[in-house]
């Protein structure tokens, strides 16, 4: 049911682990729903120079964490903020509909990590989308 790219990022996840003294951390998800994602970023001159993750979750959750951290590395905070869940899913060559929420989680994790950095640095926070209110038709989100 998963694409080859999903399986590749699941089996050989990029950026697994923690950053010591990270500049920003974002933790999203809920054990009730079976996935928790923790994203760590290192920021230098407004650029994400490193990103790592720890994830409790299914194959799609692990692959989405891996892909999202890959995609934001080297980006400015503004550009990284623009990373959408759809872009993560597309980069993975698609996710099954029921698993789209994993890419949503990845987007939210990145947002939380960026805002954590902004907070620590006394910068105004950017407005995060309301949790789990994304523009897809199916009921993909966990209500807990």
């Amino acid at each position, binding site marked *: 049911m998963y694409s080859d790219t999903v399986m590749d990022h699941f*089996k050989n996840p990029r950026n697994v682990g*923690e950053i010591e003294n990270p500049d920003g951390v974002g933790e999203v998800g809920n*054990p009730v729903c*079976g996935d928790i994602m*923790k994203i760590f970023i290192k920021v230098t001159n407004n650029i994400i120079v490193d990103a790592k*993750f720890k994830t*409790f979750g*299914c194959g799609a*959750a692990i692959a989405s964490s891996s892909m999202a951290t890959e995609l934001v590395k080297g980006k400015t905070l503004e550009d990284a903020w623009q990373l959408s869940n759809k872009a993560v899913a597309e980069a993975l060559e698609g996710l099954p509909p*029921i698993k789209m929420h994993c890419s949503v989680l990845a987007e939210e994790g990145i947002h939380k990590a960026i805002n954590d950095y902004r907070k620590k640095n006394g910068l105004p926070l950017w407005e995060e989308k309301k949790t789990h209110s994304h523009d897809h038709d199916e009921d993909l989100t966990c209500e807990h």
Partner: protein
Amino acid sequence: MDHAATTYTHPEVLNAMLPYYTEHFGNPSSIYTIARDSKKVIEAARAQVAKALGGDAEEIYFTSGGSESDNWAIKGVAFANRKRGNHIITTKIEHHAVLHTCQFLEKEGFRITYLPVDQYGLVDPAELEKAITDQTILISIMYANNEIGTIEPIAELGAIARKHKVYFHTDAVQAIGNVPIDVKVQNIDLLSLSAHKFYGPKGVGALYIKKGVRIENLIHGGGQEHKRRAGTENIAGIVGLGKAIERATANIMEHGVKIKALRDRLLKGVIEKIPDIRINGHPERRLPGNFNVSFEFIEGESMLLWLDDAGICGSTGSACTSGSLEPSHVMLAIGLPPEVAHGSLRLTLGDANTEQDIDTVLEVLPKVVSRLRDMSPLYQKAVKNGEYNV
């Protein structure tokens, strides 16, 4: 190692079936000789099923499988007895074929009680007796649970139903070939079974209906199955079911001893090699081939993907397999916290499994668990809080 999902068709069973696709394809409702042969083999299979269950041949009705049998038993009894009452008792851990049928009946005005189970998945007979009212027309409790393998005290539950003159149905889909069954001794009025769970073909099952039970038809049409279940008979399937249940019940002890030894070897190995686990289901009252363990801090689907990579098929109570985001209703009913329910792994052993298969799992699984724990933030938290020592 997912035999509770389905089994292969045993070669002996397949060989018995094949002539009924080619030479003996007559419609049993027709009048000519080859059709009469078809009729005869169906009746022979009916006798085989009856013998395996301790019932009479005329109490056996062939269906398309477990789901149809469950639907028929529950809807059929509900609609035939609604003047007597509108209350049905079942449990929280039934298969969806029972649960969703009951939910459908709720929309039709029936009242359903879903009995809780204890931490091992057992129904308390006292709770059942308390739940019975003068409106109760049916009790439906599974013989053995498909996820955690727990075997319910069916004879005792059946006796309570009998005492209160309430029909007693059991979904025995997982039990056939694993547990000796006697519908008379165990006070069973209706029993569902499915051939592909005991080395028979898919698409065929049966419902035992004790003589005298008031039940409506589910499939209307021709006069097959004593005018109770319409549709041209699946002759080859029925022959396969008969042969398979005969084999399964003849080998029941031998099968049980072999499979249980493998399961215990697996469980012992996992306990020795992997810390922070929880064994789900009852320690003794369980199906011989059922292994169900939760591995804390990790999620089931990612475990399955890695096991599949090593050629091991399993299943999980995690959300991924249910098409929803909720963990399995069985795991929640036995009181597992959701994150632990998501980390469950079910392996169900069958005739083809060997000690070597078990040793392969014991080689692969610890690595999979530790790889996934290494990337789990829950594990990291537990280590930090001193709940777990690396």
